[in-house]
């Protein structure tokens, strides 16, 4: 990965100054006395756990919400936007995780939305629009045809289009909210390089991220929030800002324990799940989607098998095929020695397989429902009595057990699950599967969207599950996580297994070498 260095272009005069900012909601203080500044030509990292107040700060800056107290100065004048439109007009653009492009329109139409160049007749001058679009997207290194519909672009390319649009509006401060969370390593490297280039051109960038490696690599300075308050400012000296120091400020304690390898391993037992020559069919509706190209894999009882691979390596596809969520083209599987060929998740679950999916919001939680239903939904048969009537007392008793065992912090079983933090939601989903006493549990991105502090807890839970004899398959993009929890690690690339080693022999460098040997296609995708 390229290592962009600090910019010499940063001016001493701050462009944006936030002074003593506060935001209170009924009963909750989201921000309290936060002060920071951003200079032209620098990248400022805004870091903090979920609930630290980053989103609230972004909402205020983008004009979506007014602050309760404090002042903001932008370019020497008071800044109090009444709406996102006003914020944009002043030169501050926020690019959210959920992109705001219109997928059915072309790149050019998206960039010029609401301000298309007109010809003498008052009609849209399509040629000028195409020509200017080419010039605009070239600034972010895109060479896509301006006519391409945005839906045909990858997430990374769409993001670049948004950045290009912001630049074309002569924005002076670009706020990026978790821009790298959906990108592959190569795409992240490209984005960081572009951020570095823009900084050289005098643009100020506020980079909000969970990924501390990236923050440490690119940011000139970082501001850390914790529980709505300022937890510290750090600036780059000779080298990058040290990650352990950032973590310490984020969680308020030393970082050494975060990725500590949980102890007390049990020797793995017999083979639980055996996969032979598994392939998946090409989906005519998504011809570019990755397919499995013949996967062989054994998972043993009481073992945590780590599956490492980049986004698009086929890890999630493997999980979904094993779980019966996607069809299989060829190959065979056995579970505890018996043939296993699930035609639906229902089948897979009945045979003792569980899946904690990667996209918690869309694939796992029922946001509007209470914790109790979220917990028992996969085990309704266990808790249903005669006439299908739920034995709620039993249900609550078992939930209370897991609440204690997994230390789920919640108010009551009736509480809506979307009121919990990411880590506690994830624990409820794990409890959902434990209630079924599974033989194999597949956990895709166990700590995505989970606070730094709760990650270690989730890891410890995975180890506990394995010690009960469950075969645990952990899929993760975070190598430190894979290294911390796994007994054995396999790597995937382009729908195939590319390597295997015991965790005791694995290092990040070895794994990277096995999973990141990119082909030309991948590098340019």
């Amino acid at each position, binding site marked *: 990965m390229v290592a962009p260095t600090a910019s010499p272009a940063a001016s001493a005069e701050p462009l944006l100054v936030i002074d003593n900012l506060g935001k209170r*909601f009924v009963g909750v203080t989201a921000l309290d006395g936060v002060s920071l500044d951003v200079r032209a030509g620098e990248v400022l990292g805004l870091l903090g756990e979920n609930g630290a107040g980053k989103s609230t700060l972004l909402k205020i800056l983008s004009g979506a919400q007014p602050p309760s107290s404090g002042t903001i100065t932008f370019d020497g004048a008071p800044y109090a936007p009444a709406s996102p439109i006003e914020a944009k007009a002043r030169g501050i653009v926020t690019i959210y995780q959920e992109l705001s492009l219109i997928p059915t329109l072309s790149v050019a139409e998206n960039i010029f939305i609401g301000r298309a160049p007109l010809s003498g007749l008052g009609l849209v001058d399509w040629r000028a629009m195409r020509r200017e679009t080419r010039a605009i997207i070239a600034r972010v290194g895109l060479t896509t045809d301006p006519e391409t519909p945005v839906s045909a672009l990858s997430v990374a390319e769409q993001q670049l289009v948004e950045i290009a649009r912001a630049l074309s509006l002569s924005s002076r401060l670009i706020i990026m909210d978790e821009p790298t969370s959906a990108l592959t390593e190569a795409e992240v490297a490209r984005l960081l390089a572009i951020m570095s280039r823009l900084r050289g051109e005098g643009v100020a960038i506020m980079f909000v991220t969970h990924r501390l490696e990236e923050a440490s690599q690119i940011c000139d300075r970082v501001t850390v929030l914790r*529980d709505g308050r300022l937890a510290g400012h750090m600036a780059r000296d000779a080298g990058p800002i040290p990650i352990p120091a950032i973590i310490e400020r984020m*969680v308020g304690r030393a970082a050494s324990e975060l990725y500590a390898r949980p102890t007390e391993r049990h020797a793995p037992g017999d083979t639980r799940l055996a996969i032979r020559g598994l392939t998946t069919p090409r989906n005519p509706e998504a011809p570019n989607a990755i397919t499995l190209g013949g996967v062989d894999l054994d998972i043993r009882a009481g073992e945590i098998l780590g599956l490492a691979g980049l986004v698009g390596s086929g890890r999630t596809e493997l999980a979904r095929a094993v779980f019966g969520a996607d069809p299989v083209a060829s190959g065979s599987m056995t579970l505890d020695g018996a043939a296993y060929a699930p035609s639906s998740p229902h089948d897979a679950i009945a045979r003792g397989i569980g899946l904690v999916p990667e996209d918690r919001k869309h*694939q796992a939680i029922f946001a509007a*429902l209470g914790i109790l239903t979220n917990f028992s*939904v996969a085990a309704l048969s266990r808790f249903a009595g005669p006439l299908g009537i*739920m034995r709620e007392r039993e249900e609550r008793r078992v939930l209370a057990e897991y609440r204690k065992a997994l230390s789920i*912090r919640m108010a009551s079983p009736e509480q809506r699950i979307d009121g919990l*933090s990411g880590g506690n939601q994830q624990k409820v989903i794990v409890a959902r599967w434990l209630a079924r006493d599974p033989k194999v549990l597949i956990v895709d991105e166990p700590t995505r969207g989970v606070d730094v502090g709760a990650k270690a807890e989730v890891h410890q839970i995975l180890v506990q599950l394995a010690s009960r004899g469950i075969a645990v398959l952990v899929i993760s993009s975070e190598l430190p996580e894979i290294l911390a929890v796994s007994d054995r690690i396999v790597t995937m690339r382009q729908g195939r297994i590319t390597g295997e080693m015991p965790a005791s022999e694995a290092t990040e460098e070895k794994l990277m070498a096995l999973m990141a040997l990119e082909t030309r296609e991948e590098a340019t995708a």
Partner: protein
Amino acid sequence: MTTSDDTRPGVNAFGLLKRFGPLLFLAVLMVIFTIMNPNFLNPINLFNVLRQISITGLIALGMTFVILTAGIDLSVGSLLALCGMIAAVVAKGGTANTLALESAAGAGYGWFAALLAAIATGCLAGLIQGLTITRLKVPPFVVTLGGLTIFRGLTLTISNGGPISGFTADMRWWGTGLVGPVPVPVIIFLGAALLCHLVLRYTRYGRSVYAVGGNAEAARLSGLRVDRILVSVYVIVGFFCGLAAFVLAARLNSAEAVAGMGYELTVISAVVIGGTSLFGGVGSVGGTVVGAALIGVLVNGLVLNNVSSYTQQIVIGLILILAVAFDRWLKTRTRG
């Protein structure tokens, strides 16, 4: 350190208002109408209101299941007419003597066969619509919009456009009888409401309905058979169309091809006013009963105060929009 996030008080004034908003609104409305016209509170009038809402109320119970899964059924008014017509044909033993009066009524198969026929027709229609939605992947709005015209057309074909009238006293009791002071249709409606409440609140099936409506993909990945549950809710609303059609025919002593025109709107309004979300996963039978009662009280109160039926329609439409707007407003207040 995250405990402050996770143990926010679950109950506050806005939460309560949100939960009991429709009920509160119903109470306020009743007080206003009583002040305007003391006759409103007369038990005879109140039972009258309940009897009037029992037909659309029954269908609204079924519609609650459908809307909880984020679906919709626009065909209920037409299906009501079709089921009623089938019930009449069975009760009369044929379509020949369409206008024959009571003297010829004994030739049919009796009220029980008529009831079964109406319910079977409703369930079958629901099954076909449900399978079309899940197997052919046609959106519920489109399938049931087609059903709306198909069922009406079938009804007109069977009846040749006219009504079938004149049932036995046994059958008419189900629409016009009283148990003590309580009209039979009201007992059927409230009994069915109680049953639906118990099913949705306390059974495995009820949980599945909420889960499928709350997040269909998560439900599938949790092992629920989403398609079966989706089909089942259309069968349930079909069942209630059949039951309501029987009661309506018994009450009017006649089945008409034009029965139930526009009922889908009243029924959906009742469910939505009762707080069930059109996006699925949120709502309750209690809410639907209150929603149906609210519309019934509104119409009755307006009639008692000599408001024209034209104006009534305007008022009901406004109430529907206000109810949902109020709900949205509360949502923005309860989420910080």
